[in-house]
């Protein structure tokens, strides 16, 4: 009796393994196939679903996008108005005023205007945060602005140990030695509610659903390995399609 495996038995076993492998590969890719199909359909109709106008602002997601809120580097308060420098963005009363700065020297209320000092720029704003003018002091001062304040009804700045006082319209500044009556802005930390408002303002509306879906679809949401993972899934799908074709051909031949 010949007990050695015949070529037919060997072929059957290989075919069985092939079929089993095909089935398991298919099952393991079900989640990816469903996800890629659904996200693909959603992206194809993102305009209709208004995905580019819907936002998500989950903090863990925004952290994953690198939108971690930096610690505030300076914060000043005067007459109920607070200026804060968060990263390089200037905030007034918890609202981003659209100005980039590396230093915040202080805030002073002068008449109906707010005077905020940056490194070499004075920002004049209305009480509701509208920019009146950004005055560049770069070519007039020897160093950065160190203090911002007021002398009577005029704005005042201090730089490199010298003091300057504005005209009534806060258009020009002149060197001014008599600072005995000057008020200089002093840094004070914002309270917990103000910090929370600043963090919300920093993150803005978050990311659009379209952006999130695109990054999920391409795998970029998990960084550099994400696209490689999706490439692997795609290659696996190609192999699965080919193995399915081979299996169906074998079955047809048997019939």
């Amino acid at each position: 009796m010949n007990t050695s495996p015949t070529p037919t038995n060997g072929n059957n076993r290989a075919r069985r393994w092939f079929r089993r492998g095909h089935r398991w590969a298919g099952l393991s890719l079900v989640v990816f196939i469903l996800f890629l199909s659904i996200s693909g359909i959603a992206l194809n109709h993102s305009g209709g679903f208004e995905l580019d106008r819907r936002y998500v602002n989950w903090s863990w997601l925004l952290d994953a996008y690198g939108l971690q809120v930096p610690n505030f580097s300076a914060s000043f308060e005067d007459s109920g108005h607070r200026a804060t420098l968060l990263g390089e963005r200037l905030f007034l009363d918890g609202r981003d005023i659209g100005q980039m700065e590396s230093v915040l020297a202080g805030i002073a209320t002068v008449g109906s205007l707010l005077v905020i000092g940056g490194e070499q720029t004075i920002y004049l704003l209305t009480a509701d945060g509208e920019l009146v003018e950004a005055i560049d002091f770069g070519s007039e001062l020897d160093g950065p602005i160190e203090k911002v304040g007021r002398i009577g009804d005029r704005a005042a700045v201090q730089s490199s140990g010298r003091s300057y006082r504005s005209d009534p319209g806060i258009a020009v500044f002149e060197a001014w030695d008599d600072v005995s009556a000057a008020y200089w802005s002093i840094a004070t930390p914002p309270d917990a509610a103000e910090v929370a408002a600043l963090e919300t303002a920093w993150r803005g509306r978050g990311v659009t659903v379209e952006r999130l879906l695109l990054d999920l679809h391409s795998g970029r949401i998990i960084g550099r390995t994400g696209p490689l993972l999706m490439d692997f899934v795609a290659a696996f799908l190609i192999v699965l399609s080919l193995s399915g074709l081979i299996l169906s051909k074998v079955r047809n031949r048997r019939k």
Partner: protein
Amino acid sequence: MLNRMALSVLFITGLAFAGPAGEAGRYVETDEYLSSVFPAEVPAVKILWVAGDLREGVERTLGHRFAALRVRYWFDGARSAWVLDEIGKELPITIGVSVSGGAIQNVRVLEFRESRGWEVRYPFFTDQFVDARLGPNERLDRRIDGITGATMSVDAVTRIARIALLMHEHVANSD
């Protein structure tokens, strides 16, 4: 032969480490620019409130909201100088424009903050604005040739040239 190869390697290495001929930065201080426009004496600074029809014209020209409520300028009765900011791609470009008799006298890029597009600082580009006037629809009366790879900066400088002409016209008519 070996010496020549060594020299070539040194030359190529030198080229690789040499900084670009022009790059982002502060090129001209405001007072330097003003002294070049008014060599005899820089006139006192004046303030122009950008409101009403002027604001409408400025915002139409810019194609977006004008961020400030007022701008400063220098005017000696005939010639005016403007130092204005406009965003090229993401960061503002600080541009000086002087206007005399309704025509641009010069345009200079005082500060460029972005990593691309700084070629707009060169005279081969800014000289195109000399003698340009406002034509119909607040457009310049001449074509300004662009620079490949600096389209947004070119557009920003062109917009500022147009609003400087618009503002000069406003202050010249009201003085």
